[in-house]
């Protein structure tokens, strides 16, 4: 079987009917979070879409993002997308290992120079010359720079790649940085989440595949179509929030009634992601529906943003020590200043020169 040049060919080779293609287009449109009326346009674009090469780099990561993708529906739409993309390097998924693996990467880079996509999961340690993570003797930093050089665009998959994630959490011993801090001259799409929703990953890839460019992004470089609204705005428990009905513990009456989880630390209001609509596990549920607040995993620095079970409005860290020091210092300084001023007053009184009738006469005009 010759390597399919377009998606249509690829689907035909797999014996998928035109009906199947239309279904695929409808679902892809849905996956890209575009309105259903755009499905015909998507179909037209996909008829002529080229088959891009994808190089997947895994750096300081836990493989959770790949897990998220591979553990999703099977055989899935995502799979079709991935089958269609020529996944030329992914050291977890590819059969080749060692030198052969690295060779595959270099070959893909050469053959598709300027046209291939790079997906990155994991952050990049840059401290001490990037010694904290290497693949085949090449530091992550160097491999990223090499690989990105001839790329058309970079997709940072997962919060580690997008914002630094767990490795970058305080105190960040490896000097981990996200992709966007290292790649300035190529378009970078951040698909954040720990892990990201699989359909969002494939949606972004589908968008590139369909339209040949990256989707519209928010201030954090995330595709607006998935990260445009907060969890809170789309949460089915939002009416309880508006009414001020909150679960106080995980097993109280409010929790059983499905009230808002704000007080249990839900970060929904400050978290932008598609969990509340797309949901997880084939649209079964998402954390809030399962009775647990949102962690805010798709936001920068979510590990350092206070306790997971601390409400958003609570302070981070204790204030007791600060308050005690402030009271002591304030009292000490205040008493000292007050007493000093009192003694100044008394001193002035001792120095006081009596007002006499002569003084009155003197000032008479």
């Amino acid at each position: 079987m010759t390597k399919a040049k377009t998606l249509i060919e690829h689907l035909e080779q797999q014996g998928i009917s035109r009906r199947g293609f239309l279904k695929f287009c409808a679902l892809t449109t849905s996956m890209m979070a575009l309105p259903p009326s755009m499905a015909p346009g998507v179909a037209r674009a996909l008829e002529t879409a080229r088959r891009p090469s994808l190089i997947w780099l895994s750096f300081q990561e836990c493989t959770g993002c790949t897990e998220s993708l591979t553990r999703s529906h099977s055989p899935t739409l995502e799979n079709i997308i991935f089958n269609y993309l020529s996944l030329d390097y992914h050291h977890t998924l590819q059969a080749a290992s060692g030198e052969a693996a690295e060779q595959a990467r270099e070959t893909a880079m050469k053959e598709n120079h300027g046209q291939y996509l790079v997906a990155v999961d994991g952050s990049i340690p840059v401290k001490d010359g990037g010694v904290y993570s290497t693949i085949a003797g090449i530091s992550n930093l160097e491999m990223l720079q090499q690989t990105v050089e001839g790329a058309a665009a970079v997709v940072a998959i997962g919060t580690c790649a997008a914002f630094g994630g767990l490795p970058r959490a305080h105190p960040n011993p490896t000097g981990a940085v996200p992709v966007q801090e290292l790649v300035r001259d190529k378009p970078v799409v951040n698909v954040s989440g720990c892990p990201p929703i699989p359909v969002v990953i494939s949606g972004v890839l589908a968008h590139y595949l369909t339209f040949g460019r990256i989707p519209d992004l928010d201030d954090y470089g995330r595709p607006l179509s998935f990260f445009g609204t907060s969890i809170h705005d789309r949460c089915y428990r939002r009416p309880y929030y508006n009414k001020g009905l909150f679960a106080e513990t995980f097993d109280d009456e409010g929790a059983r009634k499905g009230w808002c989880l704000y007080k249990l630390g839900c970060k929904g209001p400050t978290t932008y992601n598609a969990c509340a609509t797309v949901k997880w596990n084939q649209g079964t549920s998402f954390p809030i529906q399962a009775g647990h607040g949102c962690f805010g995993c798709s936001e920068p620095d979510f590990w350092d943003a206070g306790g997971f079970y601390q409400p958003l409005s609570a302070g981070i860290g204790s204030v007791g020590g600060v308050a005690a020091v402030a009271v002591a210092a304030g009292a000490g300084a205040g008493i000292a200043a007050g007493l000093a001023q009192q003694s100044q007053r008394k001193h002035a009184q001792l120095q006081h020169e009596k007002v006499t009738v002569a003084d009155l006469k003197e000032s008479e005009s």
Partner: protein
Amino acid sequence: MTASADDDQQPPRFNAKPILNEIRHGVDRLLNDGQTTTIDLSRLPFDAEDERYLREALGDGEVYASVNALGESKVQETGVAGVWWVTHFDAAGAALGKYIEITTVPGILKSQPEDMLRGLHMLNARLGADQTITSVQEQQ
């Protein structure tokens, strides 16, 4: 999980009703302008409770069809003629997408020219080469 329905503190379903209203307008557009509408339910905060409400409101219609392309697709006309539930499944039977289509016949049910052509080729091959029919489409 979702609260029980008899809970008096339960806020009104906030998605099912607007969707029902959208469907009403869609039917009106179809009747007057022949314009079709598709509502993608997977892009809305839409849960089982909403779906139950919507199914109850729309009822079941006369047509039920199952399509086997890239996994199964179920097409079910609702009690409101012209309003269809279209659900796409993958090969393992997991729902991939759920739509409400407001149209006379959902597109997925129509036979596609490309597929017909493939069928024609198959028939040509079976009946011998003496009188091969070449479709107009192919000539173009």
